[in-house]
């Protein structure tokens, strides 16, 4: 039997456990709809009747600029996606290494624990943009032979370094959240420390931290835009180019929508994964 309290996958509508709607009767639904209409209606009325609305509408919601900038932004989107996928794989590996290093017990492993702690403190504490600048301009500035000057590569390295610190802490929380009796039982069955980690602790730890990992995935997807500051023309960079060229803010709206379209399916996919995993766990219990 698993000692883990299963996490409830969020279901927006209909479930008895859902807090969004609670237990609704038909009259409750009607009240909810009316109330929503009134609240958003009032907000919309205030916005549309503000004196500056026509200018803001032209500046932020211009259909012609939207149509012009959408193809430009979509054309460079593959750069962000490429950066995201490569970075994510490297981050998961490095973060797991850091988290495991942090959990090694005993005085002989003190240097590893120390390295992990210092790494996480430094790279969580420093703004990511500074690391990107240091690596994106500083390392090519050194002029080392054999080392690439490519901004994409150094942006990737910077993002991996910074995000591994965050994700390592998430993994660490998962590992420490697995009840110690699990490892004790594994050791008493004759598994070595490494084997108990690999076969008993980590599978449980990773499963329970998937929702917070998703948080970090989405944060990373948006942070890929930081490489625009070291010269790579990707989504955010192209957005600023279009906005500056037309003196219009609608490209920022396009950029926001593009990011939403990128992140929301990922969120629903992970929900589905977690839900499927939970069903499997419950199925074994029921038997």
């Amino acid at each position, binding site marked *: 039997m698993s000692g883990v309290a299963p996490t409830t996958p969020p279901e927006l509508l209909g479930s008895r456990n859902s807090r969004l709607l609670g237990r609704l009767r038909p009259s409750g639904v009607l009240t909810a709809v009316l109330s929503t209409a009134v609240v958003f209606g009032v907000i919309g009325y205030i916005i549309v009747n503000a004196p500056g609305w026509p200018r803001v509408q032209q500046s932020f919601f211009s259909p012609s600029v939207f149509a012009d900038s959408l193809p430009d932004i979509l054309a460079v989107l593959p750069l962000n996606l490429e950066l995201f996928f490569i970075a994510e794989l490297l981050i998961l590996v490095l973060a797991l290494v850091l988290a495991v290093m942090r959990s090694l017990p005993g005085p002989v492993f003190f240097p590893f624990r120390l390295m992990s702690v210092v790494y996480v403190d430094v790279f969580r504490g420093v703004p*990511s*943009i*500074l690391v990107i*600048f240091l690596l994106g*301009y500083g390392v090519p500035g050194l002029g080392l032979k054999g080392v690439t000057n490519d901004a994409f590569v150094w942006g990737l390295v910077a993002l991996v370094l910074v995000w591994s610190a965050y994700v390592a802490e998430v993994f660490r929380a998962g590992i420490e959240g697995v009840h110690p009796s699990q490892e004790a039982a594994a050791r008493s069955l004759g598994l070595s420390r490494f084997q108990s980690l690999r076969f008993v602790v980590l599978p449980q730890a990773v499963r329970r931290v998937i929702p917070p990992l998703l948080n970090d995935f989405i944060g990373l997807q948006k942070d890929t*835009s930081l490489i*625009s500051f070291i*010269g790579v*023309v990707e989504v955010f960079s192209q957005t600023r*180019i279009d906005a500056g060229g037309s003196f219009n803010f609608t490209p920022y709206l396009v950029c926001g929508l593009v990011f939403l379209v990128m992140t929301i399916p990922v969120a629903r996919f992970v929900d589905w994964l977690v839900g499927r995993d939970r069903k499997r766990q419950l199925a074994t219990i029921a038997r």
Partner: protein
Amino acid sequence: MRHSRLVSLLALGLVAVACAAPAATTAPSVAPTPVATHAAATPTALAATPAPATPTAAASASISYPPATASAVPSAIASAVATGSPAVTAPPRPDACAMTSLVLKNPGRLTLSTDNPAYPPWWGGDPKTQYPNQPSGGVKWKLSNPYSQMGYEGATAYAIATTLGFTPDQVDWLQNTNFEQAFAPGEKKFDFHMAQISITPERATAVDFSDPYFDSEQSLVVLQGTPIASATSIADLKQYKLGAASNTTSYDLIKNAIQPTTAPAVYPDNDTAVTALQNGQIDGLVADLGSAIYMRDVQLTGAAIVGQFAPTVQIDHVGAVLDLGSPLTPCVDWAIQTLKANGTLQQFFVQWLNSGQDIPLLQ
């Protein structure tokens, strides 16, 4: 986008400025020697155009621009006078532009705006000096000081102010740190904004532009001794990795005229673009000629200007930005036309932007 991005952008600005300052070999308060003779200008009935404030001894830099000689005007550089010539008489002052009828943000004073940092040769002067017309306290300007009335745009701004009837101490300067501020909807805090902004029809739907006060050519800055330094035409440039600063028409030139095979790089501002060129991350940097000369002489080591792009390739008309539908626009237009007609803009061009060098044409 996360709020930490705003803090990161602020940090970026601080870092960029902090890195730009040590990168300049000396305090960049350039003071080109004023030209003793210039094209004869018909004297006007207006108040005398203001002379640039003489910099204090402490402010003079050891690096100065090559002294402008009245005779060696490079044939390649287009005149600053886009329309009209010294022979055209100044138009009469519109009634709505009488000093008492001007609609100003701060009545009785002219509120102007420019970027901070403000780059030479468009601006000049020493940020640490307190000029006589400068109020104490307030914004810390970087690289140059608009109150010094130096630099092509600085001198032009004060010339417009004087033409409208203001004295130099009636001019206030606001700093613009973010390009987007210039065209954000809503009422602007300035009367007009000058920051080498090119006039395009698309942009003119969001803001009012004044008449152009300068026609700017783009040029290519490279490091000496690199293969790109021997390029002589636009076709030679296709194979290289080029870069430009964001929100400049330099990027448009790369995309439309050069169309290189490698995707160009776009940097948040001139400072980061210059760093990238020095690092060798880009082969060539496209920037307007005035800024390119400053980059080559002050910000970079071992740099050269390969050439300037012919006006037929791209020419940018630079104008001031005002509120959309601002009543001040015709008055600023009138002032600029007056300055063109009496040769003041040409004089400023010769003084601040004419490098006296022959820069080859790229086409």
